[in-house]
């Protein structure tokens, strides 16, 4: 290779290299480091013995792991459809042509920019028995009950899912709203000429036109819900007992409370594989969801 083309090959280096180094160090390298750690008895003081696949064997027979995995899956299964339907519903409301439009959109979105710590503590205190505003309201409507929202597994799940909906649905709502506004007007005009009712327009035009974005939202939502952590840690701490403990909280407890980083790394790796498979599904099925690329 002559001198000039060498120079040409080196030209992009100062542009690429800074990103490349950080990307390799903090995104790519952890994948390999995590795999290595999962093969060792790895504690905070780093006594390291190679133990091969023993962690994986233990994880896969650990009932706590399966419970946490089941809890996470339960959260995904319960929250995802609700989230998508509520987001669509809110987007339709936010798309109404009224003078309150900006207010309505802002209200649906504003909770999503609040910190998980804020929303969690607002929820905890609103849900408190005897002095919380939620029970106050229930009783104001004449229902003589004092639910202990965070003390019973099923109510705790209802609380967590409710809070998560309130907190994050605005994000998906915006994606739906953008998509709604991109539906070409002529479709509706043509349908109007043909005498279609509004109901028919919704089922025959709006919904089919929203299908691609719905698929994207669905997959993004499954991925996001699988990583649930902050609000559960702060609202229930995984309780009562361990009945709402998600997988990342269990990883956190094994790694940073029981200092078994190797075991936690093995669990992380299993979670990584699950999330990777879901991402691959997203890239394959996402259709225009590949629009991220």
């Amino acid at each position: 290779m002559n001198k000039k083309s060498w120079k040409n090959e080196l030209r992009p280096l100062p542009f690429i290299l800074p990103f490349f180094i950080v990307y390799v160090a903090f995104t790519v390298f952890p994948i390999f480091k995590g795999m290595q750690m999962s093969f060792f008895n790895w504690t905070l003081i780093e006594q390291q013995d190679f133990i091969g696949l023993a962690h994986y064997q233990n994880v896969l027979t650990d009932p706590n792991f399966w419970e946490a995995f089941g809890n996470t899956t339960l959260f995904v299964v319960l929250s995802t459809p609700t989230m998508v339907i509520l987001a669509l519903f809110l987007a339709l409301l936010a798309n109404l042509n009224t003078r309150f439009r900006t207010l309505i959109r802002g209200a649906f979105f504003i909770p999503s920019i609040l910190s998980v710590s804020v929303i969690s503590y607002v929820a905890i205190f609103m849900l408190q028995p005897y002095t919380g505003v939620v029970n106050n309201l229930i009783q104001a409507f004449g229902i003589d009950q004092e639910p202990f929202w965070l003390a019973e597994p099923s109510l705790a799940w209802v609380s967590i899912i409710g809070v998560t909906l309130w907190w994050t649905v605005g994000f998906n709502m915006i994606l739906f709203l953008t998509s709604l506004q991109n539906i070409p007007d002529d479709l509706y005009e043509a349908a109007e000429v043909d005498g279609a009712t509004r109901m028919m327009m919704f089922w025959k035009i709006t919904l089919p036109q929203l299908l691609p974005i719905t698929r994207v939202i669905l997959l993004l939502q499954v991925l996001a819900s699988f990583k649930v952590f902050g609000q559960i840690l702060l609202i229930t701490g995984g309780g009562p007992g361990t009945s709402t403990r998600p997988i990342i909280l269990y990883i956190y407890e094994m790694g940073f409370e029981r200092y078994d980083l190797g075991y936690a790394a093995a669990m992380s790796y299993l979670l990584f594989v699950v999330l990777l498979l879901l991402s691959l599904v997203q890239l394959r099925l996402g259709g225009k969801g590949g629009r991220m690329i």
Partner: protein
Amino acid sequence: MSNQQQSALSQKRDPLRLPKVILALFMTFLFLFPIFWMIFVSLKPESQPAASPLEWFLPPYTFVNYIDVIGGSDIFLWIWNSFFVGIVTTILTLVLTSLAAFALSKMKFRYRRALFVFFIAGLMVPGEAMIIPLYEIIGAMNLLDTYSGLILPMIAAPLGVIILKSFFDGVPNEVIESAQIDGCTDIRLFWNIVLPLAKPALAAIGILTFIGSWNNFLWPYLAIISESLYTLPVGIPMFNSNYSESYILPMTVNALASIPVIIAFLLFEKQIVKGISFTGIKG
């Protein structure tokens, strides 16, 4: 917008318009209720328990809780930490991703495509599943409990590269070539010609990066031990768990933490919405 004409056109014929608007306003109320509740509770005198829902919102009001919280906690320090980490993270992210995207879009070199695919693959790596090895790596670099340890893992965001590359691809190559013939250096080409054209994308990525960093919980929760380095999301739970009985002061902390974000949202609403619609990424 022509879309508004369309809805204006057909709204006359929608017999359900009024109920829909009422429903929309009811949902608006529902979504804002917890935020208003938080703010009203923060204005309650400490000795005033509320017996009925309405009493939460009625006077007397007082600002004494705000004075107590500001005097009795490190809340301004946590806000400053969040702000500092957020700003540095945002600037570094923008610099690193736009430089890389420029090279990938406007320079010809071997392995360009392969490199792009390598970066895209990073979208599939979930940070949450990588906290254990990341903790080990940052620890080995002696960066636990430092600003750098908070910032570095967050700045290599491949999504930014991908979005900016597609923006730069839209800049006609003739512009680049003629500038090069005029003797324009790569860095001036980047700074004076290409970058200004990507302003909307940079603004959107920047704002979303800042919000993401501002609200990031898991990583600061792990990587920070010293109270003086707490970011706001980590400081709030530490403060609030000291007050399990009365929640007037905790709600004051929450309100103090939220008011700047809400104001920022009102100022930057358009860019935030634009950013979400073209990145479509969940935090």
